[in-house]
């Protein structure tokens, strides 16, 4: 009972790093700015004015429903509404740069809700989701990371007091509300889709095919020829994912794959259908599930300002591995990687406890700043957030997390690692001997002893060769 209470209290009040909330804030700010600037500001008279598409006085009954509120009356002039949209854009800038963040979030929520209630006929699910996001953002102290507010408060604190900058963490409850909102969204959407039974578009497998043929929503007709049977498995998989989302996201092991699938689904929706900013708004919520350490790794700096590096342990004797290292160095545009020699046993034993020499000879290891380490394909996948090429080729990054693709990736990695001797062109005797020792053999104690002996000979030969004066003396 005590353990349950402790877990419950932990869930709601544990201190969470502010970086995911900051990413959520910046993304919502960008969406809001684009939405207000592109769809509201140029069309204020059309959406809200007396000579436009909407007569506010006809909807008094709707606005007057208990609980509903708004700042604008039916007779509020178009000029006032135009300034309100400009105020909304100013709030969006405040959110993006983290200036007067809490006030900006509250102002954005109030203004957007008031404008929405002024003409509900132009609203879609994307708009409701955006203003829901702003509601949760107004509750979050998202200024505690990546904001001008934090920068300025930190400087003021140093000048006026001896305290450091404000803490980059806050109580979890506001983030939990937003996370629960997303789970409810997916769960109930899935249930509503399934409740029509096999007469409905989803259980009979035709929903995605029909969506690609939806002439007023599907962007182009290129995919309208795709047969229903071809898209039925994706339709069922999407439905299953939506219904199971709340459970899949709670379990840590399935969380990355769940989020990766969602990114691919929403990217696919955005590319093929005109659904305004829904995809971007819902993906903003995804930041709240990404560990702060991953975001800090992408940024390259810890909470205390120290640089964050990934340490890559690889076989310096293997030409295939050396080539891979050169490729990674080329892709490491932000200087996030540090390469270590797995043959430096004292370093490896200190950095990777419990990982044997044999394990390291079988696969590359990556050690993250948070102390977790990964090998083989999982190590390759771990590097993706810190290599900017994968921010551009993000579908590959997402696919790497999906079951099926990750199994194929792991099998390919193991195949290459086991057979690298066949693909390697050695330029030295020790390299050839090293690979011959490893090729196709079980890495037991005997083989490891032979590898160690080979490297000791190589090291001694290098030392003698490097010290000719001492030899002649």
């Amino acid at each position: 009972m005590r353990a349950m209470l402790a877990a419950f209290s932990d869930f709601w009040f544990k201190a969470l790093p502010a970086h995911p909330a900051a990413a959520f804030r910046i993304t919502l700010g960008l969406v809001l700015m684009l939405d207000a600037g592109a769809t509201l500001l140029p069309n204020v008279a059309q959406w809200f004015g007396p000579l436009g598409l909407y007569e506010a006085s006809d909807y008094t009954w709707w606005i007057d429903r208990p609980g509903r509120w708004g700042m604008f009356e039916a007779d509020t002039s178009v000029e006032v509404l135009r300034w309100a949209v400009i105020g909304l854009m100013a709030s969006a800038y405040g959110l993006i740069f983290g200036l007067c963040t809490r006030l900006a979030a509250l102002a954005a929520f109030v203004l957007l809700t008031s404008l929405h209630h002024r003409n509900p006929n132009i609203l879609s699910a994307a708009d409701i989701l955006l203003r829901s996001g702003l509601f949760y953002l107004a509750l979050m102290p998202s200024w505690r990371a990546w904001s001008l507010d934090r920068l300025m408060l930190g400087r003021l604190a140093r000048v006026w007091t001896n305290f450091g900058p404000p803490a980059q963490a806050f109580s979890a409850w506001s983030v939990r509300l937003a996370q629960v909102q997303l789970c409810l969204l997916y769960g109930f959407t899935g249930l509503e889709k399934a409740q029509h039974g096999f007469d409905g578009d989803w259980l009979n497998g035709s929903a995605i095919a029909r969506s690609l043929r939806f002439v007023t929503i599907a962007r182009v007709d290129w995919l309208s020829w795709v047969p229903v049977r071809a898209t039925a498995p994706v339709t069922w998989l999407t439905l299953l994912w939506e219904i199971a989302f709340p459970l899949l996201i709670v379990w840590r092991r399935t969380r990355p794959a769940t989020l990766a699938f969602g990114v691919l689904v929403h990217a696919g929706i955005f590319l093929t259908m005109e659904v305004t900013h829904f995809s971007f708004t819902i993906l903003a919520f995804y930041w709240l599930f990404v560990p702060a350490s991953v975001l800090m790794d992408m940024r390259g700096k810890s909470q205390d300002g120290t640089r964050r590096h990934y340490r890559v342990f690889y076989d310096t004797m293997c030409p295939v591995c050396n080539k891979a290292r050169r490729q990674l160095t080329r892709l490491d545009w932000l200087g996030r990687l540090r390469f270590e020699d797995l043959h430096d046993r004292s370093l490896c034993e200190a950095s990777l406890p419990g990982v044997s020499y044999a394990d390291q000879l079988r696969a590359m290891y990556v050690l993250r700043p948070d102390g977790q380490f990964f090998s083989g394909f999982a190590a390759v996948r771990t590097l993706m957030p810190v290599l900017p090429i994968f921010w551009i080729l993000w579908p590959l990054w997402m696919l790497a997390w999906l079951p099926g693709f990750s199994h194929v990736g792991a099998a390919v990695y193991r195949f290459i690692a086991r057979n690298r001797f066949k693909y390697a062109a050695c330029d030295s005797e020790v390299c050839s001997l090293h690979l011959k020792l490893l090729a196709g053999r079980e890495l037991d104690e005997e083989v490891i002893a032979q590898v160690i002996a080979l490297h000791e000979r190589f090291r001694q030969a290098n030392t003698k060769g490097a010290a000719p004066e001492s030899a002649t003396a």
Partner: protein
Amino acid sequence: MHALKLCFRFAWALCVLAFCLLHIASLFEFNARYVGGDKALDWLLGEEPSAELHECASKWCRACATEQRWNMFSTVGASSDIPCVVILHKNGTRTLLRSEQEPPLLNMPSGLNYITSTEYTEAQSEFGWNFNCGNGRLRKLESNVIDGPASYSSARLNYVRWRMRGYLEGRPELADDFLRVDLVSIRIDHPDPDGPPRLGGATWKMQYDERWDSDWPKQIKLTRIP
């Protein structure tokens, strides 16, 4: 002082927890009703208490501006309904003010925005495809305008008036030739399994009557056929 601080922190935590649980319960109740939750609550609490509970949950969701039934694309549908304003001229011809959502008609001569309609359903019934980008808000509004049975509504009236303003801008004298104006819903069947979209039919929704609208673009008398 320390005890006071602790008491305050404990009270604050309780308030926050109460808010969170109330919010989640309201969201859950609001959404669960549409997937069988209403029957479960009616059985559990009785119909009247269940209705009152729903009203409370709805009020809370409206106050937090999070009231939304999440059912996007729960039914995809095989056709689109698009509004079209039909102007009947005194000489018996018709002008159709087509929605920008409507795909281009494949057999229509190029450069012609409005057509007379005697051949509309026959020669021009094959549609092309729009590049759907950035027209989400007007599409939503037009879907809301045309949804529902044939009847008068202020949303439909506003829409017709707005289309007429655009049509008559700079040339109000054209309205002298109008006999009547109607709002019609055009159904475009989506390709199934292949081929272009096709005209599925047209349904009359509302006759425009300028007596109800002091903001009608020009003072003229339209024929009102009940």
